[in-house]
């Protein structure tokens, strides 16, 4: 058991994220690892290929900060609010610099990650046909179904260099319990060559072993374990803190101009040392408002024979 995996986010990013990497910071709305994105910005990583089904605010920030060379995505919006303005500025006006794109449907991109996690040669799927997307993306091909003779759409596996996956609780070796919207958490971890797991809580291995069906990520695919409470804010962690919907709406205002965006990044990302300092800077009444009431699962009996 390699306890040397436990480290700070600063150490994890310094050790495992390299310029030019293809990265997947996971989380479908839920548990988006903002603390990792901010640390990548602080450490000035560049030329990254940023993969996420939903770039969300986290990649909008990284694009504004100039970390990205390319965006691989399927839905580049601010859910329920509107555009991702930094992404649009990069694409429409090359500000602060141009960004390449590689675009899929949600099924296509989550399928690429699933195929990467399970090392499928390619993945057939019932979508894409009839859409204008495949002509824009040569990675989306067709294959003749040997059972029916029909042409079906296929996508290739995605194998990022690095994944960051935030979880509710993990042990010091990286065995991770995840609940709520599990999104692409497991697939991102299994698909990637290097994996950083950050957790709201580091728990004893016995807690993990009390419920092995809850362990979506086993230790031996994990390279670094970071204890990072509030890692996901303004995204959320089910059972730990609510989504900061107010901030998601404010982001639309903050990013009206590149300059206003950078002012925010300088204050809230470059202007703080780490996530703990970011949270200290946050008004405490706001933090309190995000705390949920308890709502516990009914336990199950594994039995001992």
């Amino acid at each position, binding site marked *: 058991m390699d306890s040397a995996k436990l480290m700070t986010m600063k150490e994890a990013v310094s050790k495992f994220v390299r310029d030019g990497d293809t990265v997947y910071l996971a989380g479908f*709305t839920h548990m988006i690892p903002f603390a990792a994105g901010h640390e990548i910005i602080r450490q000035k990583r560049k030329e990254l290929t940023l993969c996420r089904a939903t770039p969300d605010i986290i990649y909008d920030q990284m694009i504004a900060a100039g970390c990205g060379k390319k965006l691989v995505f399927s839905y580049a*919006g601010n859910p329920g*609010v509107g555009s991702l303005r930094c992404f649009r500025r990069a694409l429409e006006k090359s500000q602060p610099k141009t960004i390449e794109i590689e675009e899929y449907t*949600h*099924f296509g991109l989550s399928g690429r990650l699933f195929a990467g996690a399970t090392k499928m040669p390619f993945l057939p799927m*019932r*979508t894409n046909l009839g859409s204008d997307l495949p002509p824009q993306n040569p990675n989306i091909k067709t294959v003749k179904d040997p059972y029916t003779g029909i042409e079906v759409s296929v996508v290739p596996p995605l194998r990022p260099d690095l994944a960051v996956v935030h979880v509710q609780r993990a042990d010091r070796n990286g065995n991770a319990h995840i609940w709520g919207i*599990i*999104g692409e958490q497991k697939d991102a971890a299994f698909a990637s060559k290097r994996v950083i797991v950050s957790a709201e809580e580091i728990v004893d291995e016995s807690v993990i072993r009390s419920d092995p069906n809850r362990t979506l990520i086993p230790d031996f695919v994990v390279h670094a374990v970071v204890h990072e409470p509030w890692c996901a804010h303004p995204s959320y962690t089910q059972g730990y803190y609510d989504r900061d919907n107010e901030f998601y709406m404010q982001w639309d205002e903050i990013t009206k101009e590149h300059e206003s965006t950078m002012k925010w990044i300088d204050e809230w990302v470059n202007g703080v040392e780490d996530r703990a300092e970011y949270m200290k800077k946050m008004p405490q009444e706001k933090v309190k408002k995000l705390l949920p009431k308890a709502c516990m699962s009914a336990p199950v009996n594994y039995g001992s024979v």
Partner: protein
Amino acid sequence: MMDYTANELMVIVAARELRDGESVLVGVGIPNLAANLAMKLQAPGLNMVYESGAVGSNPTRMPLSIGDPCLVTGAKSICSMYEQFAYYLQGGRIDVGFLGGAQIDKYGNINSTVIGSYKTPKVRLPGSGGACDIASNVKKIIVITPHEKRRFVEKVDFLTSPGYVDGKQKWQELKLQGGGPYAVITNLCTMRFDDVTGEMTLASVHPGVTVEQVQENTPWKLKVAEKLEQTPPPTEKEIATLRALDPDKTYLG
């Protein structure tokens, strides 16, 4: 007769399309309200499935996003993102999907990707997300959209989610398992699609609206059904139930 807004009308008309026991892939906002309204009225056994993997949610507030924590606590089931698309959508388990977009054309094709050209966009929109996957796999696609000339176009700038493409023949050639566009519900009317050609056809005009008004807001010569109907006005029960669902007028404002 009660007063109601255009949004309220659209939600009520959309809710009427849902049958008890159907499974619906629900987005946030208007479609979410429509599904919840149907569940309180004629379809108590509606199965609500969210793109985020939540099934049978029991939300305590109106979610801003389909990944909101309120859709998780007290839900019936949750699965991963790939699983949601694979087991539910591709698995053929979803009867109805709601879609919207910046543009829709006469064959029900939807553009939510780009205004202008793909390589040099005038306005870059969010893209497909699950829309193309939904359009390809649900039995009925229902589109809810304001009836504006800039949204209704003869041909979409970019075909994100297939309707009948350029007619029903093409659709059949693609061998998609979905049933294709089923209804387009606007603030003015309900349109359906011709069984043979797949062309959008005016089926029912909403209270106080004329065929001419609909045509004025549609940039091509809109087909009109032989038996054109009048949309029944919202009942008091429909309106009261709907307003109780969104007391803060998050979506009905």
